[in-house]
């Protein structure tokens, strides 16, 4: 009996190790894809720079490979293990070859510096890492408890994994049938490498998305934000009730928010320095957003609108580039919309027409009030929102107008968008109850944006106050 139990234990350990090793391989492939693309788009001067941007590379790899998988699936290419492996390898090898042909040189050494900021950065990385390790334990042991996850996100993923296609009957009858399939496709890719539709281990994939996002956020912000301003905000978002503690949940909301926030930061930087690679990467992330959730269309639209406003002073050069970006996003969004229209699925738009100001007038004020209430709730976002509002005011006083206008407009538009969703869909109750209205999920994008923008705004204000070289945001 003891021998039998020992044998079973070894077998479990082997299965467990196989599943974890599969996930590691998949995510290394995604990281390699994004690193290759970033090397092609901008190059890396030093290994330290590559390390700083590795999180962004990972997220870029996830979105690029996930979007290609999704578009191939929609085009009718069977989603097999072969496709799962070939796409990231092709992206990695292809971008590396083109980068070499264009004369990109490999990164060199690089110095970590020796100032006090080095110690602050080390403490920040250590504290953030510990929190993420704590979240790993929660992710490794989590069951499938969330309604949307087990009612349609994971069933869709299982169907793609098991049948290798978008089974029309199944996909058109599930709840959320018009939701784009990027997240189920990523899940199915993970299942292929895990070796089965193991929904427990899948939570680790979402934890890795979270780690990638935090790394990407810190890496992008570190370019312009001093360490002592940056790391408290990274820790703040990890301990906010509806952000860090939800890293492992196998739904699309947080992934959408990650892409939105990183795209917003890259667009803000692009408006400031016009480094073309930033807009290219932001466009890829925006394209991923419209393949992730239907709210992704709204968030991408308001982001581009805020960018138009913030770049109005240089509209001749900025607006055409933003127009091209918008065109790419629409082109990527189209195939899925064509698929569900062809198969008779109800659309993603509002049921009451959308912009008719005379429709549902009794819902107008309560809907927008609900969005503002959710935004200002410390139960969901801790102190993120009041701190962000303070940072916006300080940045405006410091004449960091571009950043203040961009992020202020964006937060306002997202909040108005949340109110608009409730207003134009009469089926939604005016409530923060998760099962009756998606407003809390949607406003997570505004909260995460506030957490990400605050250090940048404060750094701009600090730079102005100290008149030292740093953020040039005016």
């Amino acid at each position, binding site marked *: 009996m003891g021998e039998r139990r020992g044998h079973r234990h070894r077998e*479990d350990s082997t*299965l467990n190790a196989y599943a974890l090793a599969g996930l590691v391989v998949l995510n290394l492939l995604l990281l390699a894809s994004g690193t290759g693309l970033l090397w092609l788009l901008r190059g890396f001067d030093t290994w330290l720079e590559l390390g700083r941007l590795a999180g962004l590379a990972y997220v870029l790899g996830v979105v690029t490979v996930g979007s290609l998988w999704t578009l191939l699936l929609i085009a009718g290419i069977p989603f097999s293990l072969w496709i799962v492996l070939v796409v990231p390898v092709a992206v990695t090898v292809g971008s590396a070859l083109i980068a070499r042909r264009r004369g990109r040189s490999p990164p060199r050494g690089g110095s970590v510096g020796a100032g006090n900021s080095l*110690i602050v950065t080390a403490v920040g990385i250590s504290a953030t*890492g510990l929190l993420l*390790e704590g979240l790993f334990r929660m992710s*490794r042991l989590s069951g499938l408890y969330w309604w949307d996850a087990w009612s349609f996100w994971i069933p869709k993923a299982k169907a793609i994994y098991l049948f290798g296609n978008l089974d029309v009957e199944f996909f058109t009858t599930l709840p959320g049938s018009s939701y784009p399939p990027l997240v189920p496709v990523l899940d199915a890719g993970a299942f292929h490498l895990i070796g*089965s539709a*193991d929904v*427990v281990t899948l939570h680790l994939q979402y934890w890795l998305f979270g780690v990638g996002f935090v790394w990407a956020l810190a890496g992008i912000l570190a370019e312009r934000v001093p360490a002592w301003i940056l790391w408290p905000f990274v820790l703040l978002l990890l301990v906010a009730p509806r952000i860090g503690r939800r890293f492992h949940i196998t739904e699309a909301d947080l992934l959408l928010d990650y892409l939105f926030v990183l795209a917003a930061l890259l667009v803000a930087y692009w408006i400031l320095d016009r480094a073309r690679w930033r807009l290219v990467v932001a466009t890829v992330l925006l394209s991923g957003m419209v393949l992730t959730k239907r709210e992704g269309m709204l968030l991408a639209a308001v982001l581009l609108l805020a960018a138009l406003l913030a770049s109005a002073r240089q509209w001749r050069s900025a607006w055409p580039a933003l127009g091209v970006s918008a065109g790419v996003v629409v082109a990527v969004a189209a195939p899925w919309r064509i698929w569900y229209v062809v198969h008779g699925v109800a659309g993603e738009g509002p049921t009451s027409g959308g912009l008719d100001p005379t429709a549902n007038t009794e819902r107008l004020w309560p809907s927008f009030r609900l969005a503002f209430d959710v935004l200002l709730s410390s139960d969901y976002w801790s102190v993120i929102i009041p701190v962000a509002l303070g940072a916006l005011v300080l940045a405006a006083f410091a004449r960091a107008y571009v950043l203040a206008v961009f992020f202020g407009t964006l937060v306002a538009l997202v909040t108005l968008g949340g109110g608009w969703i409730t207003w134009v869909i009469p089926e939604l109750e005016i409530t923060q109850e998760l099962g009756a209205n998606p407003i809390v999920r949607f406003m997570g994008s505004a909260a995460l944006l506030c957490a990400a923008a605050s250090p940048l705004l404060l750094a701009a204000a600090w730079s102005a106050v100290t008149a030292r070289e740093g953020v040039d945001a005016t």
Partner: protein
Amino acid sequence: MTARAWVAVAIVLVPLLGYPLVTLAGGSPRFPSREECVRSPVEGQPVDLVFGRFDDPEVAAETADQVVAVGFIGTEAFPDGCGRWKVVLGGVPSLETAREIQAEAATVDLRPTLELGSED
């Protein structure tokens, strides 16, 4: 590297390596195995006759069709909740009846096993 850089490396690595090592020193978490999806039948409770478990749903469906074709009407392929698909004739009211069906299946070279009936 400077002394300050070594201090920074230590600040990062000591807690990040120490925390999992201390945690794992108390033993790694235990996960249920696939075999634990197989529950022995209990006298007085419904019984399932399981004609096999498969990784591929199509193979499971084909097997279910073959079992139905030789007379075991109502046999279907279901996910077993542990990443595989099982071919089941479910809802047999008693262990005694299940054993009779099992013996009948053996006459057509089928070897179903008896399991505790699933609630659904």
